[in-house]
C-alpha cells in the first residue's frame, strides 16, 4: 500500500500534518500535543511550500525501498509489504536521507523522522477534509 496525494484537490491546508503530529504524540490529544508536550511530536508528513505552491508527500512505501537498501544498521526493514523503522537500531548515519528519492525521510533534532503508515490505517488519509489523500495498493 501507499499513500498518494491527488494534487488536483489537495488544498495545502496541512490538516494531515497536524493530525499526523497528534497521532505520533504521547497524549494523542491535539491540545496537549501542541501546547503541553515537550518536545513536541514530529509530523511524519513532508509539506513542501513555496510562495505559490505546495505539495504534500508521504513515504511512498516503495516496492524497492532505497532507504532500506542504504540502511547500514538494519533499522529500516519491511514486514509484510510495509516499511518499518526501528529507532533503537538506528545510528542516524543519514544513509536513508541520502538515498530516498522523494525526500520522504526527514532528519529533525538529531532524529530520523519517517512515516510509519499508522499501522496501515493512516491518520492523514482519514482526516483529509478534501479526500486528497488516498491509499493505493
Amino acid at each position, binding site marked *: 500500500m501507499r499513500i498518494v496525494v491527488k494534487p488536483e484537490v489537495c488544498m495545502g491546508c496541512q490538516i494531515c500534518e497536524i493530525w499526523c503530529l497528534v497521532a505520533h504524540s504521547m497524549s494523542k490529544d491535539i491540545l496537549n500535543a501542541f501546547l503541553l508536550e515537550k518536545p513536541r511530536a514530529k509530523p511524519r508528513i513532508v509539506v*513542501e511550500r513555496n510562495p505559490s505552491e505546495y505539495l504534500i508527500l508521504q513515504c511512498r512505501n516503495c516496492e524497492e525501498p532505497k532507504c532500506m537498501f542504504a540502511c*547500514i544498521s538494519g533499522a529500516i526493514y519491511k514486514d509484510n509489504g510495509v516499511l518499518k523503522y526501528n529507532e533503537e537500531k538506528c545510528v542516524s548515519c543519514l544513509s536513508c536521507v541520502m538515498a530516498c528519492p522523494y525526500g520522504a525521510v526527514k532528519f529533525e533534532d538529531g532524529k530520523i523522522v519517517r512515516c510509519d503508515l499508522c499501522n496501515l490505517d493512516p491518520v492523514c488519509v482519514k482526516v483529509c477534509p478534501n479526500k486528497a489523500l488516498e491509499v493505493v495498493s
Partner: protein
Amino acid sequence: MKFENVIIGNSSAAIGCVEAIREIDSDADILMVSADRQAYSRALIPYYLRGKIELEGLLYRRQEFFERLNVETKFGIRVERIDTNKKEITLENGEIVGYEKLLIATGGKPFIPKIEGLNARDFFTFQTLEDVLRIKEAVEKAESAVILGAGIIGLMLAEALVEKGLEVKVVELADRVLAPVLDKKTSEIVQRKFAEKGVEILLNNTILEVRRNEKKILRLKDGREIETDLLAIAVGVVPNAELAKNAGIKVNRGIVVNKRMETSVKDVYAAGDCVEIFDSIAKTSRPIPLWITAYMGGRIAGFNMSGIPRDLSFVTAMNSMHFFDYYIITAGLSNSEDGEVISRLEGENYRRFVLRDGKIVGFIIAGKVGRAGIFTRLMEEELEVSGFKDKLLNDNFGYVDIPEAIRWNLLKEKVKFGVVRDAWI
C-alpha cells in the same frame, strides 16, 4: 554437495543477493560461506567504538534471518579456491561444494602503504569486528593516537577516539581532509570542527617511518617526529579479489563485472567492495566501496542468478557522513570544478551543485542536509535543472520547485523489477 546458489561473503552484497533470490524463488537452495563468524555491518564499527550501539547492534541480520529465508550458512570458514570449470569451490577445511551460480562478495581490505619500520603489531586498521575489539582494548591504556588518513573512516575514528579522551592527531597526504569528495569550503569547516575538539590535522603530510620506545615514534614527511600510543591506518580500502584472480576471473583494480554483475566467467557473479563497476556519472569503471552499491549489486546479481535479467542502471559515489553533529551528504562528482558550479554558504550550511549540460553531476550538501535524496534522483533521471537551478540552493528545495509538468512523473515510483515484501532484521 551441490547448491543452486553459492554466495561467498555475508555482508551487504551477500544479503542483497539472498533477499533478491528469495523474492523470485522461495525454493532454490542457497549456501552462504564466509570467513566472518557473523553477518555484521562493517559500517557500524565506528558507532560501536563510540558506544552508540552495543555489540548486539552490529548484527545486520540475525541468525534467525538465515533460517527464516532457508539459507544454509558456513560462517567462519574461508574459501580456498574456486574451480570455474567444475563449478566447485573448495573450503579451507577441504570440503568441496558444487554450485550452479556463484556470487563472489569478498569485500575489501584496508590499504596499507609502505612505511619504514612498520610491522603488523604496530598499527590498527578499522574495518572488522576484530579490529574494533583490538582498538577498544588498546584505547583503555592509550593517551594519544595518530591516525593516518583523513578520509571518512579515519575521521570517524578520530572523532571516536577524541570522545574517549585521547589526544588525537590525523596525518593526511592531501592538502585538506576528505579531499576526494569535499571541496575546499566544506573541508575547512570539517577541519575547524576537529580543531575545535583539539584534534590536530597534519595536512600535506605522511608517515615515513615508525620507530618505537615506550611509545611509537613516527617520522613524518615534513621532518617532524611525533610520539603516540596508538597508530591507526585508514587510507582506504582496496578490493579483496585474490580468490577471483586465482580462479582466472578477470580482475583490474577489482573484479570486473558488467551491469548484470556478471564476471568474465559464466555463472560467476561478483558484487560489493571486491568489484570495480561503471560509475554512471564519472563514466569510468572503478571500485565504489559503498554499502548501498554493494547491496544493490548483490541484489541485481541475485535477480540475474535466478534467471531474471536485470541491470544495475545507476551507480555513482555517494556518501553520508557526520562529524561532531555536522552532517554532510555528497554524491557524484561532488567537488569537481569542471562544469557550472553553483553554491551557497550560509553559516555552516552549504550547498554546492556541479552542473554539466544543465544536469546535476554532483553535489555537496552540508549542515542542513534536508532531503538530499531528491538530488540523487535528479542525477539518476538526468533531469535538465537549469530552469530552476536557483531554487536548488534553497534549504527547503523540494518537488514543489520542479515544474509541474515533470514533477508528477518524477513522483511516480519506477519499479523496475521485484517487489520487496519482507526483509527482516
